[in-house]
């Protein structure tokens, strides 16, 4: 199998304006890697550097141990799916899917067979002779994917492929892309700003922020063991709640921090330099804040969001931004109620003054079973 991509000290700058200072990354054969981050974080630029549509200012890009930094995109053996589909408007679906093969000088018969095979996989057989403008958004995206797969590339590059689709179609296409990866087991690099897409599709997520890698890891690793405040805040929906607080005690069983309202919680993390009186940030995900008869936190409900299966309660605590807690769908709480919420210390995160996370004493059970890749381990503090 082929498709191992290695980035060594890759830098991209437009004149004075530095987009990517320097990135080292290893993408293994057959891996599904998702680049995720807020807009303008450099994730699309990174993908375009790998594709060869942009030239790196410095550094090396290797595919299967061959330096391809100076190879034009056409000869890198990669396929790309664009956000805008970028179909050739004057060609039929057949022409679009077969274009790459035609450029490669394949015989008409071979092109016909491969195009028809791809069309069958993607449910496009009935539309082969239509023009792109006669297709719906989902069908157009499938044509773009078909165009990518017939070339049997070493790796697929997806640049926010689902952003132009409506919500229902996005979920369906997400499934189709996951199945495609399952059946082809080709390396895939996928750029998105949607963390649900990242979590559901990826073997490995690369979280980017202003051109640098914040963390590389499996979805659950990022969820349970974010290395810093940025990753903690970015992964998970609704966002993790943060409380700025102080260390009360640091010992062998963990670090105890003060909670708004006077109580305290002992989080089972390694102190890593945290001493009583030190400033830290406590992070708790909404799903780990559960309403209870008595709990460590209490506040007035400002907004209630009922999703049916779950209910999100937005609480006003003295001197804090709104805190989100997740309750059962059947929870009867209403706006202006006074609610207590429970914190499970094991699910809390602590971040030092620089925003780095204090490592948990124990890795989460599911994360252990997903062996973190060497790359992820390197980024693990």
């Amino acid at each position, binding site marked *: 199998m082929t498709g191992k991509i290695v980035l060594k000290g890759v830098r991209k700058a437009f004149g004075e304006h530095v987009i990517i200072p320097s990135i080292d990354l290893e993408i293994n054969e057959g891996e599904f890697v998702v680049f995720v981050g807020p807009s303008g974080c450099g994730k699309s630029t990174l993908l375009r550097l790998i594709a060869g*549509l942009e030239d790196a200012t410095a550094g090396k890009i290797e595919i299967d141990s061959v330096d391809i930094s100076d190879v034009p*995109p056409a*000869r890198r053996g990669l396929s790309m799916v*664009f956000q805008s589909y*970028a179909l*050739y408007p004057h060609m039929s679906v057949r022409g679009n899917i077969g*274009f790459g093969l035609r450029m490669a000088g394949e015989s008409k018969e071979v092109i016909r067979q491969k195009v028809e095979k791809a069309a069958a996989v993607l449910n496009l057989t009935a539309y082969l002779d239509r023009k792109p403008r006669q297709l719906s958004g989902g069908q157009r995206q499938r044509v773009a994917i078909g165009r990518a797969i017939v*070339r049997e590339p070493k790796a697929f590059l997806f640049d926010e492929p689902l952003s132009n689709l409506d919500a229902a179609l996005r979920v369906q296409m997400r499934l189709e892309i996951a199945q495609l990866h399952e059946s082809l087991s080709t390396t895939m690099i996928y750029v998105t700003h949607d963390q649900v897409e990242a979590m559901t599709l990826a073997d490995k997520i690369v979280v980017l922020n202003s051109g640098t890698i914040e963390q590389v890891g499996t979805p659950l690793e990022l969820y349970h063991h974010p290395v810093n405040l940025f990753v903690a805040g970015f992964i998970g929906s609704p966002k993790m709640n943060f409380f700025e607080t102080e260390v009360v005690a640091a010992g062998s069983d963990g670090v105890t921090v003060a909670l708004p309202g006077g109580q305290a919680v002992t989080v089972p993390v390694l102190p890593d330099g945290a001493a009583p009186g030190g400033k830290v940030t406590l992070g708790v995900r909404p799903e780990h804040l559960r309403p209870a008869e008595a709990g460590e936190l209490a506040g007035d409900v400002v907004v209630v969001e009922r999703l049916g299966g779950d209910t999100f309660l937005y609480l006003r605590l003295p001197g804090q931004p709104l805190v989100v807690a997740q309750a059962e769908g059947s929870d009867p709480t209403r706006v202006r109620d006074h609610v207590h919420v429970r914190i499970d210390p094991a699910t809390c995160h602590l971040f030092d003054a620089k925003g780095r996370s204090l490592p948990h004493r124990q890795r989460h059970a599911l994360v252990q079973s997903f062996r973190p890749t060497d790359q992820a381990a390197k980024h693990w503090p």
Partner: protein
Amino acid sequence: MARAVSVRRLTLMTAAAWLVGFLIFFPILWMILTSFKTELEAFSTPPKFLFFHWTLENFGIVQQRSNYLKFAGNSIILSVGSTIVGILFGVPAAWAMAFSPSKRTKDVLLWMLSTKMMPPVGALIPIYLLFRDSGLLDSRIGLIGVEFLINLPIIIWMLFTYFKEIPGEILEASRMDGATPWREIVYVLAPMAVPGVASTLLLNVILAWNEAFWTLNLTTTAAAPLTAFIASYSSPEGLFWAKLSAASTMAIAPIMVLGWFSQRQLVRGLTFGAVK
């Protein structure tokens, strides 16, 4: 859904639209009608609209007096020639500005348009002297050069807006699909650019066909196109309305036929970019 429009309102608006359309078309209609009248009837007061003695004699006299086909031939050579040269220069220029713009691209475009803001007569004397000294007066080559230059800004602007509409991602997709730069142009860019180039071509032929200022000032007989042919009926022995009309009708007929058959292409070209 469209707004409900009452029948009364619709009738009124339709009538108004026809009236405006008729007013705009009237001078041309009058010209065509006059070309079928005798000189006397052409002057008659009150003017006769449809009930006059229809005659073809004006066309005969016009053809006898001056060789229509020679002027028409010049018109064709001039308009087609200047358009071809214009496209040859305009396509690469617009292409470069649309696909690899620099900081100054916008300034260059505006500068080109600004040359159309000056009245042509402002450049008449220098150009006349240049033509005289290089022996280009009354030559087709010289006139093609002038017509090409005065329409070049419009050609480049039209092509530029057209090329701008071609999404860069499609070109990138073809690059990812393994197309070399040359094949990218042949298989992807050119087919998408053809409609734009075609409508630019058509519009420019029409503009060059009707251009009168330079053709009248820089030609006498040898290179004179149909605009000069019309003008020759307005001065020397007084105004001959019926013959002038006949000459004008003969002059505009070919271009009107061309415009009529290509109107879909033209409208699409002119409104391109405004509506997607």
